[in-house]
């Protein structure tokens, strides 16, 4: 894992001091809310329905047990004993006090964490593959590149007042576990003639106009990366629309001028930017990469004893193959039936930290599906890990099943919401509580957003649900056929919306239709793609 040096620490510490000063000036009335708001937002502090909400960055979703324990400590001391892990691999606290926020950030800084640029029209936390460093299919660990980008984007003087927020994802596997092409910039590391470089996709996103990013460059070399991304951003800063907040994301620019014209402009800008010497030498990428060297794997390859049936089910569902023999990737689902997707109590966060320390080379990951991963667990320890998880009510064996729902905070917390998301997730999970039925249905990614901003990725759900406001009453639209993986696609609306109970029935009808129509090993989304919308529509509305 990356460790701060004195430079990194000095920058984060200075930020805490600066924010403390900004808060003091706001409390003293030297600046208005209008002036303070962009400052607090650049520090991840929102005003939400019940209180201030703080979003803490978990760069590329990676953290160690000390940092994880700090998240638990913050939940206990400054919040109400829990946190919410988000689709952007961050954690949100819902009950933060402005007057305590600087103290909180100071504690975070003591474990090399911060809330810098977790909101605002700037470059946000860089997201990545939760299996980085563990996945068998990766060409390299994407995190050194993500860390390089984290440093470059932190307090970037030119790109802190962009037309709109800017999200970058880096992956290094053909299998996309990070919804890479639904980001403003998506990078996929690839090898060409042995050399590592990045395929660059620009202009993806969700929100009210979901778009899949087109490829803008098939191969950018490591020592050109920052110049190239800088050129991408500069073209956006210059031409991105500022007249209409709903058209301000880069996806609209790329869409309006076309990928070819955008590419032409970036190429022209890059030719200039590359002369400026802004790219660090490769030695910097090597320095960072050294922190991500594989841990000292030494466990023998033993198959776990499957005699406990519950353990066997969990193994099959939540444990994934590791590139190192003798090891496995453990997914901890934060989706108990009837629970709040992505929420974890301080005690649970501590348990996960302990397990990482004891069995997982001190590493944890947060996934965009709002789950936690222990990326390197020796197979011989899987049973012990499972027992400890079960004790903490964290052994939900439902990874990628219909009850492993992504849901945004919705109207229970979010001031922009039209409808509640969490109760819908709870009702659907409860309806499908029967574990065997869920497993029979197989991989089904259900994603719920409480408004068109799409924080819950509903466009990318095999089944997506969008909350809308129908004359003051909560109403839910259903979409089918989306995907945020390498088979990326945007879901289509089935038809008229439903009330709270209606949407649960509609989901069940769609799922039953799939069970009736599926062939062979088809997943829900495969069947949908083969047969189209009509049979589902008929089942739902007929």
């Amino acid at each position: 894992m990356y460790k701060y040096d004195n430079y990194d620490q000095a920058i984060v510490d200075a930020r805490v001091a600066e924010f403390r000063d900004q808060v003091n000036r706001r409390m003293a009335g030297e600046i208005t809310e209008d002036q303070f708001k962009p400052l607090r937002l650049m520090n991840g502090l929102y005003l939400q329905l019940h209180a201030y909400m703080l979003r803490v960055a978990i760069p590329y979703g990676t953290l160690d047990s000390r940092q994880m324990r700090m998240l638990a400590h913050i939940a206990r001391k400054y919040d109400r004993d829990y946190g919410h892990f988000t689709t952007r691999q961050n954690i949100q606290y819902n009950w933060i006090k402005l007057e305590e926020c600087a103290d909180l950030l100071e504690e975070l800084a003591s474990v090399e964490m911060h809330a810098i640029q977790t909101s605002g029209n700037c470059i946000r936390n860089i997201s990545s593959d939760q299996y980085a460093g563990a996945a068998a299919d990766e060409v390299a660990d994407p995190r050194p590149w993500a860390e390089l980008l984290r440093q470059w984007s932190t307090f970037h003087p030119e790109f802190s007042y962009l037309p709109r927020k800017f999200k970058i994802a880096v992956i290094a596997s053909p299998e996309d576990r990070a919804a890479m092409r639904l980001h403003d910039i998506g990078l996929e590391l690839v090898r060409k003639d042995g050399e590592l470089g990045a395929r660059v996709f620009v202009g993806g996103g969700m929100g009210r106009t979901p778009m899949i990013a087109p490829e803008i460059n098939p191969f950018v070399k490591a020592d050109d990366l920052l110049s190239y991304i800088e050129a991408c951003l500069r073209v956006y800063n210059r031409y991105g629309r500022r007249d209409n907040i709903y058209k301000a994301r880069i996806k609209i620019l790329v869409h309006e001028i076309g990928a070819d014209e955008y590419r032409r402009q970036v190429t022209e800008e890059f030719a200039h930017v590359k002369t400026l010497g802004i790219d660090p030498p490769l030695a910097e990428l090597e320095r960072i990469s050294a922190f991500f060297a594989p841990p000292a794997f030494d466990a023998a390859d033993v198959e776990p004893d499957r005699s406990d049936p519950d353990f066997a089910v969990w193994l099959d569902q939540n444990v994934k193959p590791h590139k190192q023999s003798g090891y496995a990737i453990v997914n901890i689902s934060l989706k108990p039936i009837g629970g709040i997707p992505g929420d974890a109590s301080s005690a649970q966060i501590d348990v996960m930290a302990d397990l990482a320390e004891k069995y997982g080379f001190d590493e944890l990951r947060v996934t965009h599906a709002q789950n936690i991963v222990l990326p390197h667990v020796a197979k011989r320890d899987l049973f012990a890990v499972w027992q400890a998880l079960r004790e903490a009510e964290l052994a939900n064996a439902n990874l990628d099943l219909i009850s492993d729902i992504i849901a945004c905070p919705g109207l229970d917390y979010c001031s922009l919401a039209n409808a509640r998301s969490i109760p819908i997730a709870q009702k659907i999970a409860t309806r499908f509580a029967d574990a065997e039925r869920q497993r029979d249905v197989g991989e089904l990614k259900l994603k719920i957003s409480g408004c068109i901003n799409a924080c819950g990725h509903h466009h990318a759900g095999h089944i997506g649900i969008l909350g809308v406001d129908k004359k003051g009453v909560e109403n839910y639209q259903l979409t089918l056929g989306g995907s945020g993986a390498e088979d990326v696609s945007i879901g289509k609306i089935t038809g008229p919306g439903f009330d709270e109970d209606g949407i649960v029935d509609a989901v069940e009808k769609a799922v039953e239709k799939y069970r009736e129509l599926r062939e062979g090993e088809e997943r829900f989304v495969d069947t949908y793609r083969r047969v189209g919308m009509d049979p589902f529509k008929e089942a739902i509305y007929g």
Partner: protein
Amino acid sequence: MVEFRYRDDEVTEQPSVTLDAFLDQSNATAVRLEPDDDARKLIPFLDRLTLIEIAFPKFRDGRGYSSARILREAGYTGELRAQGDVLVDQIAFMRRCGFDSFAPEGSLNPEAVERALSTYDQFYQKAADAAVPVWKLRHG
């Protein structure tokens, strides 16, 4: 009115003209760029300019940061002024993009400006100022 200036030379007395007026064969030595003006159009004329004023009608509109850097990258050494909705918490970024004078609409507390400019000693990126980026400090 210029409130903060980080240069030693004389203040240009000449009023600045718009980009269109300048390109229209003006022999003015001071130009004012609006957010949607393309700063690159000034590149052929930089050696006869002593002042380029970049307007920030709204602080949220960050196009002027790119304009400033583009001009500095092209070798402009005259005065580069940020004018308009310029707030204390933006001045450090503006300095890094090459601005060396500030004419904020609302008056700013000089102490707060001084504090904002001295908050950070280290910077991750190379920009248009003299700061040495952290990666260079690490690798020499």
